[in-house]
């Protein structure tokens, strides 16, 4: 069970990754190997075993609804590549369209 070239390109596009031809080849092989391994694992009998999304037996980790003073807009914007009027300035959003 492998992964097709088209699927690798699709996933790369979703993740906004610009991959070279070489990288596409490399990842096609690597991702296929990972999926093959997963396919092997799914052959195990997991009848009655709860799916796990966490390895720790923890739940309900909550915090009280108490304000922690925010850092202020000057600090917030300190690392911004561009700012304007207290806002983060970002490039045109839908530029990849059409």
């Amino acid at each position, binding site marked *: 069970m492998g992964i097709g070239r088209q699927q690798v390109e699709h996933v790369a596009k*979703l993740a906004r990754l610009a991959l070279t031809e070489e990288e596409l080849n490399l990842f096609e092989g690597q991702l296929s190997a990972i999926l093959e391994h997963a396919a092997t694992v799914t052959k195990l009998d997991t009848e009655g075993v709860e799916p796990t*999304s966490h390895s720790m037996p923890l*739940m309900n980790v909550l915090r009280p609804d108490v*304000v922690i003073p925010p850092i202020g807009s000057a600090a*917030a914007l300190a690392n911004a590549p561009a700012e*304007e009027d*207290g*806002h983060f*300035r970002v490039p045109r959003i839908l530029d990849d369209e059409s």
Partner: protein
Amino acid sequence: MNPTEAPDLVTTIGLEVHVELKTNTKMFCGCPVGFGGEPNSRVCPVCLGHPGTLPTMNEKAVEYTTKIAMALGCDIAPRSVFHRKNYFYPDMPKNYQISQYDLPVGERGSLEVEVDGEFYTVGITRAHLEEDTGKSLHIGGGGRIHDADYSLEDFNRAGTPLVEIVSEPDITSPAVARAYATELRSILEYLGVSDVRMEEGSMRVDANISVAPPGERGKKVEVKNMNSLRSVFRALEYEEKRQREVLRSGGSVTQSTRHWDEKAGRTQELRTKEEAFDYRYFPEPDLVPLEPAVEWLRQLREEQPELPIERAKRYQRDLGLSSYDAGVLRSTKALGDLFEQALAAAKKADAKQVSNWVTNDLMSLLAAVPEGTKNPPLTGSNLAELVDMVAGGDLSKSQAQQVLQKTLETGRRPREIADESGIKQVSDEGALEAAIDAVLAANPDVAERLRSGDNKPFGFLMGEVMKATKGQGNPKVVSGLIRKKIS
């Protein structure tokens, strides 16, 4: 089938409602939640998505979401999990939104709504908890995202606890859709979990609407940007009509997203990409599951307020109020509470009398007070005192209206205000008789006409007596006395 006898078309609507919770802090960090303010003043490394930061769940937001799910009759998940919804849009600095996917807080509920005396049950698919996004401001190109030169981001709202409530496609008309949104807003207001202000965006309604012959599936059109309950109705009414016309003229509806233009009164198709969204949901590794304790759920159930529709039914059933009156009294929790407190404290007035004062006089006075019906500046015992004074004949209706206004302005007791300003109603026959005698003596011709059976000048006499008593005469007693004297 004869083609001219096309079967009636059926409208199918489902609503997706987002509500911001009224917590002190954001969903996953301690930044304060609020509306307006300097851009990026309520942010921290967590809600700005800086590397290495970790989210921690706000317990109040979990409680509020659970209460909402309970009020909507949902099954509360014994285990619910947060997922990452991945997408690239600069209003979400992490490039994903923490949301819920296959294990939401609540599922399979329902909501009962009333339209023109008819009751409809709308299924609730799910209620889940997520975080709100920031706000984008598009610069250039008339402020539209497609033509903008660049955009500005304010993350004050990013991370605000947001509950998404999805209805089943059970809604059959724009009127039922509006009633559903209205009822939902009312329930949320009763629960005290959200400001539910559509104009400020703390409650947002999106709709899916399709039209098709019975038994067939229509093409779903998503309608966005409905900023009031009225525009929910107008937009859906427009869209229903548009789709019907397209189908009747032999065309087909395209599956699309349309934007409601309130001013123009129509929906417009949005330019969207053809490819389906692929959010690549996966369990949020930085948060552990929620497994609400049975005891905690029991406690929350005990704290649940009576739902507005139940309250209205009870007022009609137990107190004999009209459907209209019950509807006004239930319109906000505070108004219904005020009515009940006043009724409990009233010694002379009955439910109908107390209700009349709330639904008529108080409502018109509260119209001038901002948020008046949500937070009426009046106590139940003051209202009871006033209504009792009218019921006991101490104040006339118009005198009581003056006193009520002063009570609202000052918060002082109606009896104190009336005593101090000398507002009272004179019911003492001796005192009134003198005034009536004087008026009759001054108008012998009028008295004569009355005696001869001409009832027309009666109102004139009443007016003269009321003038003579400076408006304090009890009209009932005065008219009784006049009749006695001329008979």
